[in-house]
């Protein structure tokens, strides 16, 4: 045999001093990242999601546009008919008179009396009314206004209603017989989410919401929650599918002899996670840009409206940071679960065996997160915002709405920080045993045996 054909080295060229810990993690991560980012699924889903996010980001603009040409029907509930009639007359005169110098000949507001809070709030929830003004007489004779709506009235609508309420308050004060000696106090005014009304008793509960930020916060929150839910579940599934594919093609045999289970699991999570983060950035960047510019776009298209505030009011740097923290921790948690589960499968067809059980807890966290976005704050939502598999969604949406104590945030992140390494460690153990197992789809016993090693 021609010795000249022997490949070069006479000395061992491989590493003999260590086991290439971080280097191998980086190599695995790099390969995973390149494979994902180059895939057709990545390109298409990025384009699709980015388009979707831009559309969502531009919703406030659309709302403002629709607002300009529609009539807002408002129900009025007053403690007595006389006050109700007077309030309707005043607000109708005030709010619609304002526009007489303006272009539209139609009324912007139509006020209608409703007998009680229950009826009004039902109609608001069902969409028959855009909102309901609830007038209450306080013990000292002054008036208390609450505006009930689902979601939020646009900011300028809410402001106009507040002006109307102020007018009603003044007229009521002057009309009181006999004239009281109490000084005029501007009536209290608050916007309340109709979802928070207990329709049984008609009592209005829940915290008040600042309309100025409300719409924007919800939109930012929806974008974040939906995006992190989709990314965590889809990329988690990608991790499992990647592990299964490596087993099914038997390339695992080479991998496991070249790198440790720790390196393979951590590298895979890192690489696919970075691909996920890349996609999230590509999806969010145009959406944020649209949000930033929507004021200008709106002014250019719809004319200046000083009452329309900036749509970015809900997007604080703190929220972006929280999104990143929860995304990274949440992804690590889900990816580790998916990696461990995937390692027990032998064929791609078996993926559904783990896909469903793992996406159920994710969905179970996603739903309260969406509930929390519409102002719900039941104890279930609060507890869900601490539970590691749910907190990445639920706490994010609570933060978007903006009512979270510092200790709650610390507890929630702290629990994740403890859970992630623990679950990763378990996943590595399962993976180490699982990747060499071929055959039957896994049972619970397989998991237990794999963990016990």
């Amino acid at each position, binding site marked *: *045999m021609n*010795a000249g*054909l*022997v*490949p*070069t*080295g*006479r*000395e*061992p*060229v*491989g*590493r*003999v*001093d*260590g*086991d*290439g810990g971080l*280097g*191998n993690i980086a*190599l*695995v991560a790099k*390969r995973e990242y390149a*494979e994902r980012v180059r895939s057709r699924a990545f390109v298409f889903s990025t384009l699709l999601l980015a388009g979707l996010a831009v559309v969502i980001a531009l919703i406030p603009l659309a709302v403002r546009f629709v607002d300009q040409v529609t009539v807002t029907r408002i129900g009025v509930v007053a403690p007595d008919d006389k006050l109700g009639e007077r309030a309707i007359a005043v607000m109708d005169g005030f709010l619609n008179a304002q526009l007489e110098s303006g272009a539209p000949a139609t009324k912007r507001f139509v006020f209608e009396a409703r007998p009680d809070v229950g009826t009004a709030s039902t109609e608001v929830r069902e969409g028959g009314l855009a909102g309901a003004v609830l007038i209450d007489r306080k013990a000292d004779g002054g008036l208390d206004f609450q505006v009930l709506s689902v979601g939020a009235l646009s900011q300028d609508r809410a402001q106009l209603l507040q002006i109307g309420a102020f007018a009603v308050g003044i007229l009521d004060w002057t009309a009181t017989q006999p004239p009281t000696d109490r000084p005029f106090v501007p009536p209290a005014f608050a916007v309340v989410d109709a979802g928070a009304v207990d329709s049984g008793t008609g009592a209005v509960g829940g915290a008040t919401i600042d309309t100025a930020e409300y719409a924007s916060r919800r939109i930012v929150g929806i974008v974040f929650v939906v995006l992190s839910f989709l990314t965590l579940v889809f990329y988690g599934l990608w991790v499992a599918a990647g592990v299964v594919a*490596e087993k099914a*093609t*038997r*390339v*695992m*045999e*080479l*991998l*496991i*002899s*070249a*790198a*440790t289970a720790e390196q393979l699991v951590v590298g895979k999570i890192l690489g696919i996670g970075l691909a996920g983060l890349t996609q999230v950035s590509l999806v969010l960047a145009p959406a944020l840009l649209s949000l930033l510019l929507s004021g200008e776009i709106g002014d250019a298209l719809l004319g200046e409206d000083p009452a329309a505030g900036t749509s970015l009011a809900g997007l604080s740097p703190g929220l972006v940071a929280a999104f990143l923290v929860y995304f990274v921790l949440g992804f690590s948690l889900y990816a580790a679960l998916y990696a461990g589960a995937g390692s027990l499968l032998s064929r791609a067809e078996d993926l559904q065996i783990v896909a469903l059980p793992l996406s159920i807890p994710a969905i179970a966290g996603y739903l309260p997160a969406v509930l929390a976005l519409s102002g719900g704050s039941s104890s279930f939502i609060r507890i869900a915002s601490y539970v590691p598999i749910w907190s990445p969604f639920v706490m994010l949406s609570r933060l978007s709405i903006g009512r979270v104590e510092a200790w709650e945030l610390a507890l929630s992140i702290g629990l994740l920080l403890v859970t992630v390494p623990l679950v990763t460690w378990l996943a590595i153990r399962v993976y180490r045993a699982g990747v*060499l197992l071929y055959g039957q789809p896994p049972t619970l016993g397989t998991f237990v045996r794999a963990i016990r*090693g």
Partner: protein
Amino acid sequence: MTLVVDHLYKRFGTVAALDDLAFEVPPGQVFGFLGANGAGKTTTMRIALGVLDADAGRVTWRGTESHRLPRATWGYLPEERGLYPRMRVIEQLVFFGGLHGVPADRARREAMSWLRRFRAEDLAIRKAEQLSKGNQQKVQFIAAVLHDPPVLLLDEPFTGLDPVNVMLLREAFLELRDRGRTVVFSTHQMEVAEALCESVAIVDRGRMVVGGRLRDVKRSTGRRMVRISVADDHRLTWLAAVPGTRIIQAGMDRSSVELDPGVEPEAVLAAAVAAGARVLHFEVADPSLEQVFIDHVGHPVEEVGHLAPAEAEEAEGGTAAEGGTATEGGAAGDGAAAVDAA
């Protein structure tokens, strides 16, 4: 200074995969690890690699326990072949080289050099899914040797290769040995082992059956073989007079006769002379490794119940095709006593 498999035990459920398996591989040799499917060859390699843990016992290389050794000590060709289907061959090789600590540019050079050597340079930019099975196997072998490990563990490296590639792979083995690398390969094809190995270990159901230098192993049964050439007679009818003999290969030119332990080769020669046969050539040789295996294990290596029909057929085909080469290699390599009686 050797690879030592030190009394390994491993159970999978109720099945004892390894049962006190022990042998030593001298460094710088080509070593055959022989046994039927399910004998425990793959399990032993996985324990050596640190991928599996033994229930008891250990594997050491130059005195260091395997799980303390860097993974780059080993070059592993798994029995289950597999590559990333959508990745280009050269990228895969650079990736696996990188996992073993070879810098990318160097890995690229080594990979191309090996591909040239296997007459497969054009595979470099192809995706693995486009390759034939034999070519995938070559690529996997390159992935195992790219980092030039001191020990190669190759699980059934010859299965599924065409004769040209079998030759290329054998040459690679011998050169790696000449460069001081230790090559351990498992096989159930005895004739391949016979042609390549200096030492072998035969295992059956997780137990060591016999091991050591090839010549010693072949003589371990006490059985011997003669090759005889008789003018104008290839049926050797007179052989019936000698009990304990069996013609295993009858030929016009030369026939091979196997002797049970205790039967002296001279008895065969005496019977031939007594029958008036004109003996042209008479040679005493060691039995084939295949025969040694059967004597020790009790059944031929291919006779394994769980083999798929196609696989079993393939294994048998291989035996028939390479029988000649193997016996000749055995005779020449082991310095059989030859008597030319003309």
